[in-house]
């Protein structure tokens, strides 16, 4: 049972609030009221607790001094593993929260093979969308999520090494630049969006909360069946290029953040994924087109 809003706020500003997203529990405290409000908006409906749980990560968002709190407000981050993140101005506060959490997962999580990939599900079919920045991975996973699919993750696909299942880690989607307007149009309702953070190193960033059913099912894993590598090209004709199993394997390795650290177990897990899934590359020029291609590829290849 979630604590009420005032309790959440009190714990966030004080000794810390326990937040569980998928397999990971983080203890968070935020000393800036404006960032606290933005955090509570974008994480509305997530699972919080004031009772301690065995905690994976700690995140402390604070000001280094009185001057940095009130005169030229600047946000500093402390995780147990690192506290020398580049400080951000208070106006970009939520970015540092997200950055801190991503950093800890990227370097700390070894129980699951991590993919830099979106993961979605339809009718029990798990779809992995790995991609480099700028290929439209986030837009496509968010687009599918707000088109009736279940959203599992955007930044980190998590494959359990032992079971070979994909576990949800449904953090807010980070949308960049042109894709913000596309998604606002696609979703129709401004409520699940954060405000837009302009002038970041990656341009303008806006966060989008995943749909409620995806959050409610954040502990339900799914078997990977399909891997889709999106390529955004505004002038291209829509196309689907199937990939061989060998190619599929190497592309998965390339998109994984902790493959080398996990070692042999990760090799076996990815071999299994490459053998048991079908993979393709899709080239598209609009979100509608991409979604149609994904559905077409699945309908034609999975009965």
């Amino acid at each position, binding site marked *: 049972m979630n604590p009420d809003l005032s309790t959440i706020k009190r714990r966030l500003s004080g000794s810390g609030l326990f937040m569980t997203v998928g*397999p990971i529990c983080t203890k968070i405290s935020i000393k800036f009221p404006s960032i606290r409000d933005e955090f509570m908006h974008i994480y509305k409906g997530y699972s919080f607790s004031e009772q301690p749980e065995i905690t994976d990560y700690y995140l402390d968002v604070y000001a280094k001094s009185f001057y940095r709190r009130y005169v030229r407000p600047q946000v500093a981050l402390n995780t147990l593993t690192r506290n020398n993140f580049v400080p951000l101005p208070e106006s970009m506060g939520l970015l540092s929260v997200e950055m801190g959490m991503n950093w800890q997962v990227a370097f700390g999580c070894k129980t699951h093979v991590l993919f830099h990939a979106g993961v979605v599900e339809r009718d029990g079919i798990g779809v992995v969308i790995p991609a480099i920045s700028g290929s439209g991975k986030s837009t496509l996973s968010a687009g599918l999520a707000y088109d009736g699919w279940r959203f599992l993750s955007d930044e980190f696909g998590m494959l359990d090494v032992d079971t070979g299942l994909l576990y949800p880690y449904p953090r807010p989607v980070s949308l960049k630049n042109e894709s913000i307007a596309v998604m606002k149009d696609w979703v129709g309702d401004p409520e699940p969006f954060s405000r837009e953070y302009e002038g970041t190193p990656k341009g303008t960033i806006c966060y989008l909360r995943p749909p409620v059913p995806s959050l409610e099912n954040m502990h339900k894993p799914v078997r990977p069946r399909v891997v889709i590598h999106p390529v955004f090209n505004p002038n291209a004709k829509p196309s689907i290029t199937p990939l061989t199993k060998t190619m599929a394997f190497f592309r998965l390795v390339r998109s994984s953040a902790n493959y*080398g650290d996990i070692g042999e177990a990760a090799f076996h897990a990815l071999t299994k994924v490459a053998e048991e899934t079908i993979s393709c590359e899709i080239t598209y020029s609009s979100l509608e087109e991409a979604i149609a291609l994904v559905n077409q590829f699945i309908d034609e290849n999975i009965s």
Partner: protein
Amino acid sequence: MLKLTVKDWNSVFFAAHMLKLRGRLASDARENGLWEQLPHKAQQILTNARIIAEARQRKVMWEVNRLRRALFGFEDKVILVKGGAYIARGLRAAKGRISVDIDILVAKKNLDIVENHLLLSGYASQVLNSYDQQYYREWAHELPPLVHPDRMVEVDVHHNILQVTNRLCPNINLMIEAAVPLEDNIYVLSDVDILLHSIVHLFVDGTIKASLRNLLEQHDLISEFSQQADFWTQFMDRAEELGFGRPVFYCLRYCAHFLNTDIPSEVMTRAKKAAPGFLTLKIMDMMIFRTMVPYGTGGSKVTDYLATNGLYIRSHWLRMPPALLAKHLTRKFFRRFLKS
């Protein structure tokens, strides 16, 4: 471990993290047969720690492989010390250990040759400031750290285990002569020297802050090596020969105190001959008890601060003669002052 509450688990993991002992905790939980009964979440965190430790150790051993290739043609002894040696020998002290860099010891006359080999193979010095470069070359017991840009594992090339200016700096040739071969020209120190090196590193050169890990390492080495019948005699003889009676006394005293290490009483009696005076020992005890396990004990912050910094100052005091220390610190102070 089985009776811990959620709060206890978080304290344990927090302390273990700060003391760099999570990997060790994971390894012990498995060996003691407790694993299956631990909460799922605790297993998950310990598994992360185990994999991180294994991955780091793999990296360190791969770096040894690359070093051998870089040193092709150099045929004198290359001695692996500290973590690298524990891993290569499969010692208990390597279990769950998080090793970050790799330390080798070579004879001083070979220092330039080894450095040239490494530079030619693409290793680059991490120290660019000319004062620091000069400081290393003139006073330190090692070259400025070298790193290969493809792998980013720091390699420290030592020619002694203590700075030449340290009043306890030993005749290193004795240790190099006694080293035992591992494979080709890769060597490790003899058992007694491995333990002495660890002790000297902690009680002479180190700052002793949060170093339960190092004490545990000595406990492991003692427990493992003392299975051999003549270990204690050899060890105490060697400690006296190299002039390490005092740090050995500290090691045995605190190992027995914190870790219940099995030390024969006649060894303890012999070690006590090198004990400091009553007052010095009291101060040392006070500082060690406060800094060895500094997290979650709830002691006074002021005394913790004094103890930690007292030990830090002590390590510097031992490292150089006072005039040199003053010169070095003045230089460092002005550099910091000018930067800000």
